[in-house]
């Protein structure tokens, strides 16, 4: 019989080592599907590494991909910390992007230092509002936020589609359902010449650090942790659970909205319904891999981004489906979850009793 005994206090090796170990195991396990597909395994790994890190261009691509993942990862991490199960980052991302496009494509104009913060604030506000609604439904009426936030994703996507066919449609797009482009003064400038990586990355890193400070060192962070870990005790001690939840919703939705702004103003330049290949959902994986640590989100977003970019490039080179990347990320998540369980519990294998 297998028994699980809780560990009182996992050491630093368990806390930091296990996610790294889990990611490594997931990458090694990718050899199995590679072999089944008949691909040369070592060559495939080599191509994956060069695909993600082989040149300045590939690193830039990887970082471009990591930028929205950091932001949606943070969005999930802060919400999950407070046990607010926000599955709606994808919708919040699109609302953020749409808000940025609505005011950033020529309605107003000004210098970059005005326009960029302006569209960022607009996008964050739009994302935040998208989550505050479901959060109030949860705290006031007990409506399950998993259901509301998840379903809102589809509503938002259809709404975006409607707007792209109507009010926001670019008359110059020759019939394509896409918005007018973001004006130059609101575009996120690139970090390197002729590369796609843009200041969105710096903003995302700044958000991660700011969030880490907020959670660890501020009264708000204290209250978020208390509500997330034991809401009845927080309520008893006089912390307003509703207020704290709304704050968390604003932060989480805002960060997801910012991811949308960053994609639309930093990478794409206009809004279309294929803006995000599921960054909102991938953010959940990123946050779980990081064990909901804001700084850890940076590392896990970089890992997920390099797996995606590396596997993309590898699959093009040797003709293996790029779904391999999804497979590796999914396995990494499973490994981390198992690893997380093993850090919390010690496993005992008892001799099974033979009598009976």
């Amino acid at each position, binding site marked *: *019989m297998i028994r699980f*005994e809780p560990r*009182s*206090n996992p050491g630093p090796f368990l806390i930091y080592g296990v996610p790294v170990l889990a990611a490594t195991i997931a990458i090694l396990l990718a050899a199995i599907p590679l072999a089944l597909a008949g691909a040369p395994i070592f060559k495939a790994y080599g191509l994956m590494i060069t695909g993600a890190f082989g040149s300045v261009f590939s690193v830039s691509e990887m970082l471009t991909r990591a930028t929205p993942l950091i932001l949606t990862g943070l969005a999930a991490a802060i919400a999950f910390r407070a046990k607010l199960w926000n599955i709606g980052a994808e919708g919040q991302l699109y609302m953020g992007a749409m808000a940025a496009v609505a005011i950033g494509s020529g309605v107003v104009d000004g210098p970059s230092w005005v326009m960029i913060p302006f569209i960022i604030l607009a996008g964050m506000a739009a994302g935040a509002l998208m989550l505050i609604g479901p959060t109030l439904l949860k705290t006031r009426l007990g409506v399950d936020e998993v259901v509301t936030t998840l379903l809102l994703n589809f509503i938002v996507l259809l709404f975006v589609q409607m707007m792209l066919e109507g009010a926001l449609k670019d008359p110059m797009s020759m019939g394509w359902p896409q918005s007018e482009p973001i004006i130059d003064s609101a575009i996120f400038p690139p970090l390197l010449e002729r590369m796609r990586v843009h200041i969105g990355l710096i903003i995302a890193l700044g958000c991660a650090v700011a969030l880490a400070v907020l959670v660890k*060192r*501020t*009264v*708000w962070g*204290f*209250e978020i*942790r*208390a509500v997330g*870990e*034991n809401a*009845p*005790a*927080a*309520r*008893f*001690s*006089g*912390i*307003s659970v509703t207020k704290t939840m709304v704050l968390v919703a604003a932060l989480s939705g805002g960060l997801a909205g910012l991811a949308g702004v960053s994609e639309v103003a930093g990478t794409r330049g206009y809004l279309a319904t294929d803006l995000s290949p599921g960054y909102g959902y991938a953010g959940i994986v990123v946050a779980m891999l990081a064990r909901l640590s804001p700084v850890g989100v940076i590392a896990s977003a970089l890992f997920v981004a390099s797996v995606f970019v590396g596997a993309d490039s590898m699959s093009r080179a040797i003709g293996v489906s790029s779904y391999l990347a999804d497979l590796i990320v999914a396995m990494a998540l499973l490994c981390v979850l198992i690893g997380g369980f093993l850090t919390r519990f010690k496993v005992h294998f*008892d001799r099974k*009793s033979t*009598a*009976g």
Partner: protein
Amino acid sequence: MSSAAHISPETSHDLLLSLAGVTKRFGALVANDAIDLTVHKGEIVALLGENGAGKTTLMNILFGHYVADEGTVTVVGLEQLEPGAPQAALDAGIGMVHQHFTLAENLTGLDNVVLGTEPIFRLRRDRTKARAKLNELMAGSGLNVDLDQPVHKLTVGEKQRVEILKALYRDARLLVLDEPTAVLTPQEADSLFAILRKLAATGLAVIIIAHKLAEVLAVSHRIAVLRGGAKVGEMKTTDADHNSIAEMMVGREVPVSRRTAREPGKPVITLNDVTIDRGDSRRSLHGVSITAREGEILGIAGVSGNGQAALAQLIAGLDKPDSGSVEIFGDKIEKFDAHTFAQNGIARIPEDRHHDGMVGSMTVAENIAIEDVRSPEYQKFGFLDFDAIRKRAEHAITDYDVRCPGPDAPARLLSGGNIQKLILARVLEKSPRLILANQPSRGLDVGAQSEVHRRLLEARQGGSAVILISEDLDELLTISDQIAVIHAGHITPAMPTDAIDRSELGLMMAGQKAAPHAPHATKTTNPGETA
């Protein structure tokens, strides 16, 4: 009493159960250290010990939930009991009545008793035999209960009888009761003891796990005391006395807290005809009027689930009255809010200290400061002042003797007694004007209990008003100045403790007797109160 004398364990050599050298380790912790214990037929053995002494572990080994690392469990008539197999324990005639009942609330008592003993697939249900057997059991033992009522309609005492019948129906030869009186009124407890003595007289062996000493002395033949996982003593009940057992359990002398005379001061909190209707008697109050005064402990006696939760929620600032008013120092409270209450001199000790009293993953220091993190003492511009928080925790740890690895250790590592000390440190340090103590010593060991009582009396001496909600009559009678009884959401006028008769109190708790007119009615009631 009389039946206990007939079957004296020394004369009966009918050994039933013997545990020999039972040792169980959890990592570095030795939960049971080479424990020997024997139980004879017809004998009631009390297993005493503080929390964490190893009582529950030992019973879990007996019942097959755990496997002992060393040692054996032998039931006479069988070979060694197979370790780790609850079914083997059941087959050997060991029945267990847990503190939290394991009954299906929507089924009748009869259903619950026979559940698991009859085949699932059958053409017709014939329970005449089962009923006959149960009727015989009930007649022989006095375990009377209406078996055709759904369990949720039964009182707690009746539910417990169903649990005992369940074990007896399965031909238990040994009955293990875990803290059986924790949920009972004194009368119910007395009748349980009478039943147990009757059952013992017919040859049933009983192990009763307890930490209320008076009860143990009243019912058992023999007492075994565990401390720190080892058996530190065993004696015939006739040779035992209260103080010697308490000392044996704790390992040192236990200071007994006593009230000293003190004139009460001004009223601190007054409830005027407060009604809270939540459609559920546990969470409702009906026309409640009480007053707690400076330097006075007002005890609220009652059986669990009679509205104590509603009263506590109200005074903790977590709920507001539907009608009636609450006055603190004569000011009518308009805003019922936990934060405001905590910041205005109301110390709140929650009933469930694990659930409401602390955030396990946060540090000891953070848990001590949790009510005050918004005050300028502990934050600047929204940033926490960790030095101040840690400094306060260090003081609290020394002053209140909180045993923990340090201020930065997660609070979940603390034992129940130390969590309570942490909560006391959190709320009493601020010299509160009113203390709401809801079951402050429940589940604590003797040492920690006396510490809680000492702190409450100290606060009373310092002029705080204390509202003590408790199900433990000994506690109430020891430290309260006045006692009011809560039953079905109604609270009687407060009566001075010295004038209270214990058995009358029990009847009032059961709702069978109205409160006498309080002799000090002019002092304890107020004009708003309804007669």
